[in-house]
């Protein structure tokens, strides 16, 4: 395991594109998730109205609301990580290095495992980063009285991890099937639309089935939180069934990825 990760690192550490993408991800995600109050201020200046609510009083960064708000917004930046995953996989096909890796003594399963490990690593780092932002912003903005809710709804952090990990696994499978970077990015971008089209096509009583599709499954983990500030009912916790479904998808996606190269010629 450690060796496979080392192999992956030695492919990446001198690769500028890797650092650029990862760098942009953390900088842009960090800045955006930390400027919620600036955003509210801007809304207020524009004269936006939330009914009776004073916009500047919206407790975006108060414990425990912060966990859902933060993880929900942070999810949007995973496309950058997805592009990195696509490049790291399609490069191996366009440079033919997957072929040389196998000649040198990697099995096809090792190859997939090394990609899964790097995806796991990135998902963990990203989750820790979001967690630290949460602790920081929460501590700055939460009134004393809410500090004791610091770890209430912390379950959104593992949910964020799962959503990121499964998203990147899904991207991996697409990249392994498509094998070309540009086309993979396009398909990753339109893939959610495909799942929603299936939802539209299915007759009403069967529509719930789409919730079991991989993209629906991982998106359902964290519900849109902001409705609660205009007194809409939202689900402010992570559903156990969603966690279970996503856990189930991990082996399915890895297996699907393996099947794309298991019995293929690598030329």
């Amino acid at each position: 395991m450690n060796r496979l990760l080392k192999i992956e690192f030695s492919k990446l550490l001198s690769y500028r594109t890797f650092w650029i993408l990862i760098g942009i991800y953390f900088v842009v995600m960090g800045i955006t998730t930390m400027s919620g109050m600036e955003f509210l201020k801007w809304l207020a200046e524009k004269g936006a109205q939330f009914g009776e609510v004073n916009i500047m009083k919206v407790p975006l960064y108060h414990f425990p609301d912060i966990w859902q708000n933060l993880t929900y917004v942070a999810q949007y930046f995973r496309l950058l990580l997805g592009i990195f995953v696509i490049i790291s996989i399609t490069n191996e096909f366009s440079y033919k290095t997957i072929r040389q890796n196998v000649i040198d003594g990697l099995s096809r399963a090792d190859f997939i495992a090394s990609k899964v490990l790097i995806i796991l690593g990135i998902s963990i780092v990203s989750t820790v980063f979001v967690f630290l932002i949460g602790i920081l912003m929460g501590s700055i903005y939460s009134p004393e009285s809410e500090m004791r809710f610091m770890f209430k709804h912390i379950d959104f952090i593992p949910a964020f991890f799962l959503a990121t990990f499964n998203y990147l696994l899904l991207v991996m499978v697409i990249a392994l099937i498509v094998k070309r970077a540009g086309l993979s990015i396009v398909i990753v971008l339109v893939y959610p639309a495909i799942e929603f089209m299936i939802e539209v096509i299915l007759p009403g009583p069967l529509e719930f089935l789409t919730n079991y599709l991989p993209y629906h499954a991982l998106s359902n983990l964290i519900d849109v939180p902001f409705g609660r500030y205009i007194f809409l009912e939202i689900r402010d916790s992570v559903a156990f069934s969603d966690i279970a479904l996503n856990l189930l998808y991990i082996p399915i996606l890895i297996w699907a990825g393996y099947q794309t190269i298991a019995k293929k010629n690598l030329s």
Partner: protein
Amino acid sequence: METVLSTHQLSKQYGRLKAVDKLDLSVPKGSVFGILGPNGSGKTTTLGMLLDVIQPTGGSYDWFGKPGSKEQRKKIGAILETPIFYPYLSAVKNLEVVALIKEVSKDRIPQVIEQVGLSERQHDKYRTYSLGMKQRLSIASALLCDPEVMILDEPTNGLDPQGIADIRQLIINIANEGKTIVLASHLLDEVQKVCTDFAVLKNGTLIYTGKVEDVEKGESKVIVKAEENLENTLANCPLVQGHIPSTNGRFEVTMVTGKTSADLNKYLFDKQVIVSHLETQTKSLEKQFLELLNENK
């Protein structure tokens, strides 16, 4: 004799095309085994199957008496067709990846880079290399694990004359360490110089396999030239089976079995003929190769 590699009815079909057809090969330990054949005869496909990058459609193969596995490939140094590396990494960094995959120490990297004469450029990115430099790096990579077996698919492709001579010497040195080398090449002269055994493929089928020394065993030809015309002398010489005039007043002489150019030289000297050119020609692999292909039309 111990066998390093054997294939049993190994086959690969692409649609209707039989790229490799029921191939039975056996490579003895310590041999330098040449695989010959015209373009598209299935050499690369065969080697690709032995290295698990091409899935056979039939038959099987054994390395050291066991079915192929990744553990075995870690101990094989192989280059297949064109050099393949990460273009954004330097020679050293690329070999570090290989060392990790093969689970060998990185300590040998400077040594193998030195061996192929790439030290000066070792920290430059791979994509800035010339074709010959890329080829040299792939040979360095094949040497990295100090392999028991090397598989070299056209290893001198793109190399300059010095590079070709270097690689030839390298192959000879490695073979002298008792290691086994499987070499696919179009340079028959090259194969004749370094190989002990060879096999010839045509349209995916094995049409010949044998020892290189047997090729050379056949009747020997001697090229001879003197100031005077040798026509009559040769015609009356009991050592000579036949002779045909060649360019520049030379004669191509077929000796009676067991007689050599030295015998001919002595005979002529005794007849007070001073030869100005005397050369023994062993039958070339190239000639045998072309004959084989023609026989199997």
